[in-house]
């Protein structure tokens, strides 16, 4: 059972989508089927997490089968602490998103969401580079269709934009992947694209530098780091809410995941060449995105930039590479995903109720819809990392790590965090408080379904904030081992 559990986790949603698509089921059954598949996946993921042994280094529940034998391309899935966290986040968010979409009549939505889940889960679990590339690309397709078909505000152009940008990055990565496979062939006489095999290749740094650049381009666009971000705000503002949640809570994190797993796993030796660049982009990006967020009038765009700012912070944590920042980054991946999912879902609810997400048309929600205001404020604050929420623990760890790395960088990191506070408080003041406007005068409070949808996120954010010791044992030993391995390969270059 345990060696096929990951396969089930990846493919259950797709199988459901295919079966329901072939039989052309009615909308009522479609959404029940989708929810059922999401719950099955959640159950399987929790089982996997239960049996996951954090003390054992390396991949677990590995499934390694031949696929294209001559080229050494394999079907290779496995999970370690890093991917387990992302896997849990995905599995947890999907039922919540399905709950949000429950009244969506359009069938295409549901099929795309099911396929999207298979795509992102596969990308998290794939350990063969070609398989990873396959999932990495295919997860883009449902997003492309959802933005272009069901989005708003110039959505067709924005869908094309995110597609072109992301594929530009993946093509650069593809070249690097093919070269690595060839390098393995040239050295050992057999082709292999398995991540561990490629990680152990003794490559010439002058070549590896270029290959690393290919990978980094793909991940920098996905995260997005400063300079590679021009697709972000348009895509976020056009995407329908479920797609938006996946984009910010999961797909952007996959960029970080890629940087971490493949950037550090394969290119540990040459990554120090890019360290100053990545560090600058992440630091400046944090501030730049935060300032951009302050100036936005559209809530989606505002939190798009806020998301960019926090992803830069996570990227910074990964680049600084010590035990505080790595733990903090991993922790922030999870808590930021929960918090952004909460905030974007609530922005979606605002859109449903008022037909607008422009801040200057909102105001006074707290006086008409107190429960809504409470949840909204909670998620907004947990994005900034208020003590008591998971974000605080994570950001604290990263800031401590930044200070250990270098005091100036620690200072810079800590100050830029303040900018995030600024826009959130100002936004809260303008949307929730004051006197209700015409658009918000009859603002409906949260219904029972919506409470059911948001409460798990709230509980988890509190739990991660108050009792981090519940979660850290899950990933700490492996992160430590991974870090030792990285420092070992980098050969003291840091």
């Amino acid at each position, binding site marked *: 059972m345990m060696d096929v559990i990951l396969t089930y986790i990846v493919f259950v949603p797709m199988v459901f989508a295919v079966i329901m698509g072939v039989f052309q089921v009615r909308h009522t059954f479609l959404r029940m089927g989708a929810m059922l598949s999401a719950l099955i996946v959640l159950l399987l993921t929790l089982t996997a997490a239960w049996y996951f042994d954090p003390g054992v280094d390396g991949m677990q529940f590995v499934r390694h089968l*031949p*696929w*294209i*034998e*001559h*080229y050494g391309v394999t*079907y290779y899935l496995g999970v370690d602490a890093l991917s387990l966290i992302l896997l849990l986040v995905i599995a947890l968010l999907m039922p919540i998103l399905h709950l949000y979409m429950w009244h969506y009549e359009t069938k295409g939505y549901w099929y795309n969401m099911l396929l999207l889940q298979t795509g992102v889960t596969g990308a998290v679990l794939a350990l063969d580079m*070609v398989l990873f*590339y*396959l999932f990495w*690309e*295919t997860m883009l*397709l449902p997003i*492309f*269709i959802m933005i*272009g*078909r069901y989005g708003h505000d110039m*959505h*067709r152009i924005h*869908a*094309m934009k995110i*597609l*072109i940008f992301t*594929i*530009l990055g993946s*093509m*650069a990565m*593809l*070249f690097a992947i*093919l*070269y690595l*496979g*060839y390098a393995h*062939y040239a050295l050992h006489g057999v082709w292999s694209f398995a991540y561990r095999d490629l990680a152990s290749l003794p490559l010439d740094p002058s070549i590896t530098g270029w290959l690393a650049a290919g990978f980094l381009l793909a991940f920098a666009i996905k995260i997005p780091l400063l300079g590679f971000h021009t697709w972000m705000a348009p895509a976020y503002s056009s995407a329908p809410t479920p797609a938006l949640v996946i984009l910010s809570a999961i797909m952007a994190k996959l960029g970080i995941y890629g940087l971490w797993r493949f950037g550090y796993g394969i290119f540990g030796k040459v990554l120090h060449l890019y360290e100053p660049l990545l560090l600058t982009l992440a630091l400046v990006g944090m501030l730049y995105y935060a300032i951009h967020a302050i100036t936005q009038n559209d809530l989606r765009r505002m939190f798009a930039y806020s998301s960019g700012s926090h992803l830069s912070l996570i990227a910074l944590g990964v680049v600084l590479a010590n035990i505080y920042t790595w733990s903090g980054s991993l922790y922030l991946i999870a808590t930021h995903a929960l918090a952004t999912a909460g905030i974007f879902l609530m922005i979606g609810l605002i859109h449903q109720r008022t037909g607008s997400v422009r801040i200057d048309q909102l105001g006074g929600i707290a006086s008409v819809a107190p429960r809504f205001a409470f949840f909204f404020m909670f998620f907004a604050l947990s994005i900034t990392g208020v003590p008591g929420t998971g974000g605080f623990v994570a950001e604290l760890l990263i800031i401590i790590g930044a200070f250990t790395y270098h005091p100036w960088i620690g200072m810079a990191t800590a100050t830029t965090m303040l900018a995030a506070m600024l826009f959130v408080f100002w936004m809260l003041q303008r949307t929730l408080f004051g006197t209700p406007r015409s658009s918000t005068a009859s603002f409906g409070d949260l219904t029972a379904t919506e409470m059911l949808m948001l409460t798990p996120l709230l509980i988890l954010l509190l739990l991660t904030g108050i009792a981090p010791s519940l979660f850290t044992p899950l990933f700490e030993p492996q992160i430590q081992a991974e870090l030792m391995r990285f420092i070992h390969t980098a050969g003291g270059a840091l």
Partner: protein
Amino acid sequence: MMAYLSPFAPTTLVIIGAFVLLIISTIKTIHLHSYLYITVAFLLLAFAVELPQFGHDTSVYVFPEIFGHAYLVDDFATLFDLMFLGGGALTLLINAIYLSKRDYYNGEFFALFLFAIFGMMTLAHANDLVAAFISLELTSLGIYALTGYHKNYRGSNEAMLKYLILGSFAGVFFILGTAIFYGIAGTTVISELAAFIHLHGQEHLLALSAAGMFIMITVLFKIGAVPFHSWLLDVYLGAPFPVTMFMASTLKVALFAIALRLYLILYVDTGLVGNQAITVIAILTLLGGSWLAISQTVLKRMLAGSSIVHGGYMLIALSSIGLGADTAAPAIMFYLLSYFISSVGAFGILSYIAAGATRPLTYDDFKGMAYRRPYLSAMMAISMLSLSGFPSTIGFLGKFYIFTSAIESGQFFLAGLGIFVAFVSVYYYFKLIAMMYFYPDEESEGERHPFEVHISTLLIGFMAAVTIWGGIGTSLIPWFPGADGMIEIARQAIGSLP
């Protein structure tokens, strides 16, 4: 005598079929569908006879007392034959609806079609430059006539004239090259030429290389490589749909059959290297083709432009042959198969939709197609994904093999350029997907066209399924080639060459 009959049977069946159709086309009472099914029956019969011949790893000269060493039967040619026969049958069946809605198609159309396929088969079997030239001209003449088949349509006439004049001119280079080879070596048999060049090649290297390149000019012209491409867009646009599809898929396969045989036997082993020339042409083809494809609004022209680009990908692998990668030639064969499958799907859907149209279809005509015809749109989307090389389709594996073989040969720039061009192609292929899925339906106000169960539509669906299976297919089903099995077949075919 009898020993030669069975390897010769498929070719014979096709030519007999052509004459049968020519004779019965004089009977005016026969319905078009009867012609169609007779043609397909001959093609499938030949396919069935030929299929068991693959995989014996033997090279036989057929009727050597008559043909000398001109007609060779080996796995290489057999595999190509199977592709021509299958491709021809598919082209006709998928276009059945298109053909039946036009009243100017009759028996001669199918006779010409079979003559062209006969020419392709002999081209794949040709072990002699003169035989190859005759086969090539036979194919070309058939296709010239087919291109101009719509007599009362000016575009069709223009296309035929352009193709005929330029094609004949380009064909002359083949003869010129052959003549130089004969003048130096005293033979036109490819394997004997190879042996001669092996021994005395260094003395005449310049002349021999020039002769080899002259022959390649003809092949490159017919493939539509830049700078020999100027005819291609107009001809593809003007030709009737079945013929365009035939030219884009099956004819291209035939041309690479002779190109591969020449390259692998004559050019590479003997040091007659024109790789730099091919490399330059590959670069021009990739960039020029992309430019042409991007700038089109008519879909048929876009597919024509993109077929130039796909030729360019194969030229990458062709120029990699002999540079250290033994995977380049199988990669071309696999790519031909993958391009064939995906382009037949795309052209098939286009011709099915264009069956009732009076003007060339543009991107805008596909707006909201997903609401009107959800199944066809999904199949079209799959074809587009495959053509753009999106993973999980057969098109991705095709590109994967091409680029790895280029990297393996040290052609990093070409591989990088190919990947960049594949990135560019995402734009013009996904534009169609965007048109189909992103725009509301304005024409029929939400009314759906029912999925018409017909041999054409079923085959299009089958091609879509093959596209996906070829991209992710596993070896779980033992006797059925998955993604892995097809490249093995290609390797076996290449391995049968001396």
